[in-house]
């Protein structure tokens, strides 16, 4: 047993964001040589807690101790200097530089006189990477590696830090069984040297294999802590899901029989998803669930032509040209993207400009903008979707919820046959959320075929007639509304 002063002690940490509370009064202790797993649904606060320990975000309340000393990192460099390293879920690599250089960036081995020794650089990178089961050349640019290879480079880079505490955020999301095994072996060896780990993952089987203790978070609170990893899977799932579904969701009506959207054996050229087929009928809400990195966003981007793919997509029986956004729009298919500010709205423009840009073919016949028609269309959209603002207001002045309504408005003004929503309520408060659900239900009543991708299980389950569960890019099964329960979905998504 270790005393409570050893290792990392997190006490009463709370993180308040405008409108939402990401963490509330969380205590965690990680002793030397210990591996603590953080478990929870998407949005439970795992990444926020990891970010606070790694110095990426600062807590609103609470304190941390690191080897008995107060620890309040203001930046990632502070944490790294203290021996705390984070392996981020999104990879942070230099795509044009070699594998060796990426592993040792900023700490290049030098000879006397300060000259960088490329031989030593290669040797040291190779040593770390071979321990992880990486077999490729040290000299190729990182952008030529597979996602798994890039993840190994990212892990090797963090191991180079000689950290005393490593936070691994979904480290195996892109790894195969063999590479995962090699990683676990490293973790065991490092633990024997006294290195501590915080292991964030959705994969229950993995956590039971690697963790010494398990902390379960739900809605930003610690709901359970287990002194061993030997906890039945059912129990963990129950603790993660826990609550009853909020009655936010309007009543769901049965869909018509007419099939509107058909997706047939669609595969990504990069292997992010494979052989996906499904149909969506008029008025049906089809949910796509899965953990982060399962290939959900990649799938819907490919369906709407934003990314290349192999396979067939039909709308009302007519084949849609692949890898053509214009073709998809012409076929009556629109997408409300996950990355609102990057892909959904043009933030520095006005509401009207944003609505106009998606409807140019109707507002500007022959290429000339009809100002009166533009104003009318924008005003109609604002009214119909209850955007809190006037057409001439800048999108940058709106809240997240209202920005999302602008995205909905600009596309729905077209009267689409298929609407695909990727994380429609991410970062949106409960009030605006309900009105977005109302819009979705209204579309369903109007006979539109709807696809909803969401990390929020309640949302997918509450809205959808059927739910498809994706895991590592493959279809793990389609559940009917009455058999789609949170526990069942999590089981499919994490095994």
């Amino acid at each position, binding site marked *: 047993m270790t005393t409570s002063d050893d290792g990392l002690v997190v006490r009463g940490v709370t993180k308040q964001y405008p409108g939402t509370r990401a963490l509330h009064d969380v205590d965690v202790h990680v002793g030397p040589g210990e591996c603590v797993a953080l478990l929870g649904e998407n949005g439970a606060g795992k990444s926020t807690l990891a970010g606070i320990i790694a110095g990426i975000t600062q807590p609103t309340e609470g304190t941390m101790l690191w080897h008995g000393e107060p620890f309040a990192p203001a930046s990632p460099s502070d944490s790294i200097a203290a021996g705390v390293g984070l392996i981020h879920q999104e990879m942070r690599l230099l795509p044009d*530089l070699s594998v060796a250089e990426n592993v040792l*960036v*900023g700490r*290049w081995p030098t000879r006397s006189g300060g000259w*960088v020794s490329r031989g030593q650089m290669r040797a040291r990178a190779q040593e770390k990477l071979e321990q992880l089961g990486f077999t490729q050349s040290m000299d*190729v*640019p990182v*952008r030529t590696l597979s996602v798994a290879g890039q993840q190994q480079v990212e892990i090797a880079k963090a191991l180079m830090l000689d950290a005393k505490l490593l936070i691994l955020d979904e480290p195996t999301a892109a790894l195969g069984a063999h590479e995962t095994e090699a990683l676990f072996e490293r973790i065991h060896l490092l633990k024997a040297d006294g290195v501590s780990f915080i292991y964030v993952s959705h994969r229950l089987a993995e956590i039971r294999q690697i963790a010494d203790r398990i902390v379960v978070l739900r809605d930003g609170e610690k709901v359970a802590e287990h002194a061993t990893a030997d906890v039945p899977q059912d129990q963990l799932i129950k603790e993660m899901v826990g609550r009853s579904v909020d009655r936010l969701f309007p009543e769901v009506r049965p869909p018509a029989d007419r099939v509107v959207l058909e997706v047939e054996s669609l595969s990504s050229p990069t292997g992010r998803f494979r052989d996906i087929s499904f149909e969506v009928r008029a008025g049906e809400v089809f949910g796509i669930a899965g953990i982060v990195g399962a290939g959900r966003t990649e799938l819907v981007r490919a369906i709407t032509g934003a990314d290349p793919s192999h396979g067939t997509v039909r709308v009302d029986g007519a084949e849609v040209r692949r890898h053509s956004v214009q073709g998809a729009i012409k076929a009556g298919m629109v997408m409300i993207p996950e990355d609102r500010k990057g892909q959904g709205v043009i933030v520095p423009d006005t509401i009207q400009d944003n609505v106009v840009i998606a409807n140019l073919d109707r507002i500007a016949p022959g290429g000339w903008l009809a100002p009166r028609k533009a104003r009318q269309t924008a005003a109609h959209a604002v009214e119909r979707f209850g955007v809190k603002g006037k057409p001439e207001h800048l999108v940058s002045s709106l809240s997240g919820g209202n920005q999302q309504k602008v995205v909905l408005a600009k596309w729905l003004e077209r009267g689409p046959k298929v609407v695909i929503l990727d994380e429609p309520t991410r970062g949106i408060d409960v009030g605006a959320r309900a009105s977005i659900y109302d819009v979705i239900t209204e579309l369903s009543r109007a006979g539109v075929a709807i696809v909803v991708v969401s990390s929020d299980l309640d949302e997918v389950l509450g809205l959808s007639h059927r739910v498809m569960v994706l895991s590592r890019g493959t279809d793990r099964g389609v559940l009917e509304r009455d058999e789609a329960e949170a526990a069942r979905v999590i089981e499919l998504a994490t095994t």
Partner: protein
Amino acid sequence: MAQTLAGTSAAPGAPTRPGNPWVARARAAFTGTGGALLGLIVIVVVFSLASPYFFTGRNLLNIVDQITVLGILAIGGTAVIITGGIDLSVGSVLALSTMVLGYLAHDGGQPMWVAMIVSVLVGAAAGALNGIAITLAKLPPFIATLAMMSIARGLANLITNGQQIIGYPVWFDDLSSNRMAGFLSVTVIVLIVLYVAGWAFLRYRSTGRALYAIGGSDEVARLAGINVKRITALVYVAAGALAAVAGIVLASRLDSSQPTAGTGYELDVIAAVVIGGASLTGGVGRLTGTLVGVLIIGVLRNGLNLLGVSPFLQSIMIGVVIAGAVMADVLRRRKA
């Protein structure tokens, strides 16, 4: 032309086989220059066949003399572009430095070596202002150096109210015209030394490697403990100082200093660096590639002049080469 050639060139970063280490090293130095080196060879062959005067010792020496100024500027340009920045002010800073040199040597009555040192310091100071504007005032590099381009040009003209300064000591002019051992002038030696030093710096110094990291992702560089702001600012200081050295070389070649000197050079620099395989988005670029790019521009100008092609037509052809070279590069990278 460059396009089809690039298809047959070796992939960048291809692992070198063991064997003669110097051959391997030389090959490593020029991989990544890709199609540009082959393009240069083709251009040289074509001109050699088209004109009997082209492939003569005297003309080749002429080409080397003609590229010294652009070549020196392009060293700084390469470093700046690797960090993902751009420097539009180097032509104007060159003019300012050469005017400071002339003013101090003539009106100021200073010895040449004092004038030369002050000239380089002025260039470095202009670069430092660029660096401060970019890292502290957070101006985009394009805007900061565009402003400096205008300011330095104005200052260059202000010194003599737009007049040129003619006449330097004979020994100073000899630096560019007196060929030791039959071919090496001092200015060419300076060019060679700067290229070797710059190449070693970019490849084998921590600071040099940091430039690539910053250009690839300044966030990754920052998290790796690299002082991104300081190093970024210093790159512009180096570019300014190198522009001043180029200004001194130009003064020696012309036996005069002109406030209009270097007009448009900033674009030639960018063209040479980009032809050499660097990416304007940063993180990619090699000095060996830049040298090839500089030679392509120099050889094209020289060869087309020998053939009596009008300067207007030359301009068109150089434009086509720039577009072709970058297109070949993009296609090759997509395949990789």
